[in-house]
């Protein structure tokens, strides 16, 4: 299976492509400023490594059915793990590098790809996760459900971004209803896979280093030394 999300050149006309390029540049500028506030002087190395992680994750194949596999888009995943600002910077840089060095995604479609995946995908994922934060902090099941819904919404809304761009400046004579049905139907299926993998991944990180999960920041109770446990340990040491 191939994830049909990297838009190629020629899908929309030049003015639309350029306008979305400007929107993407502005969004990236805001995200960079806020990412710096999230990570202070560690911004460059931390964001660099998170970006490398996103790049590597997109190369890992997950089984779907025998003979078919897909990869993670990672928008909701990075939003939950490192927050929306660092997350969207990371995804945007991955898209820029893929477009310039790997011919993946058209050069003129780069703005739209950034708006769809780095802005819409990451922020919708984060907003859904943030809205369900009460559920997420309640326990492991709640966190997994939150991550699943965030990733599903993020994938579907990112494809709606494509439909909107196509409605504004679509260069082909396809009826909008067909494009809408095709893209949203396809991405609802992809979103289920994305949701399952995102939930399992977030669960794995939260089990080991819950302090690294951006969504859970400030909700961790400091570890308490239980009187009973302490004496038991002493007892066994003797």
């Amino acid at each position, binding site marked *: 299976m*191939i994830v*049909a*999300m990297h838009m*190629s*050149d*020629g*899908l929309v*006309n*030049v003015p639309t492509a350029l306008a979305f390029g400007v929107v993407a540049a502005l969004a*990236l500028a805001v995200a*960079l400023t806020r990412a710096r506030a999230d990570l202070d002087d*560690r*911004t*460059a*190395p931390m*964001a*660099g*490594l*998170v*970006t*490398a*992680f996103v*790049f*590597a*994750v997109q190369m*890992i194949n*997950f*089984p*779907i*059915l*025998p003979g078919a596999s897909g990869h993670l888009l990672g928008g909701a995943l990075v939003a939950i*793990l490192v927050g929306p600002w660092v997350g969207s*910077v*990371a995804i945007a*840089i991955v898209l*820029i*590098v893929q*477009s*310039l*060095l*790997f*011919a993946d995604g*058209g*050069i*003129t479609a780069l703005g739209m790809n950034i708006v769809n995946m780095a802005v819409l995908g990451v922020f919708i994922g984060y907003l859904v996760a943030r809205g369900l934060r009460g559920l997420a902090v309640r326990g492991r099941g709640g966190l997994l459900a939150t991550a699943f819904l965030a990733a599903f919404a993020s994938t579907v809304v990112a494809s709606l971004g494509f439909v909107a761009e196509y409605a504004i400046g679509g*260069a*082909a*004579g*396809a*009826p909008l209803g*067909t494009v809408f049905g095709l893209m949203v139907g396809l991405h609802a299926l992809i979103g289920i896979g994305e949701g399952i*993998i995102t939930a*399992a*991944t*977030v*669960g*794995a*990180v939260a*089990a080991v280093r819950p302090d*690294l999960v951006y969504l859970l920041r400030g909700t961790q109770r400091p570890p308490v030394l239980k009187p009973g446990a302490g004496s038991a340990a002493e007892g066994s040491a003797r």
Partner: protein
Amino acid sequence: MGAGHAHPLYLPRTSAVHGLPAEVKVVAAFLGVVCVVATPREAFAVFGGYLLLLALIWSIARIPPGWLSRRALIETPFVVLAVLLPITGPDPRIDWLGLSVSEPGLLGAWNILVKGTLGVLTSLTLAATTPLPELLLGLQRLRAPALVTTIATLMLRYVDVIVAEARRMRLARIARGHDPRFLWQVGATARGVGSLFIRSYERGERVHLAMLSRGWTGELPQLAERVTTRRDWLRGLAPVAVAAALACTGWVIA
């Protein structure tokens, strides 16, 4: 960045195209694709002209066309949309190869296919002739925000390390009998991605400390001295001028 950091699409050669500064090539590729996208879809012959122009650049850069065509398959996803257009498109319908297809739909499919293919071929030409450090330098010279080029530099420097780590984790799972085939068996792989994140994040913390201990000030030093001359720009933008002329021709004849 030291040697050995070539990306998979780079074809090492010594040619006039390889020798051009990266920022000239990025701007030329972008403007070239803008010309292609702006060409009306009915100007069929003009798209052949673009292909000839690219072929000329490939012969100067000594890139074999077979190498390009194998890698051009990357744009396949949107071919699906292009195939559906003639079937689902609006009237009038025409008979073509025994099938009743929509004429505007067929034109739309042609439009997506030809422009997408020329776009991918242009991007491949840029990638094949531009090594990593050059591209980062080019982005720096195009006044991309310093933070973006710094993050991209660090990302490209460590991506091989992280990918290799992911490969070792996969090998370790397979060695222990892991053979997932269905989506509901992704648990182990996803937990692997979880630990990959933790390892990447912790590596980031170590890299930051290592950078600080080596005098990191927050800015990457400019390592290359070479200045881009007016002559570089003229040579790099010459194909763009041809492409612009082709686009104008397209508007006149369509």
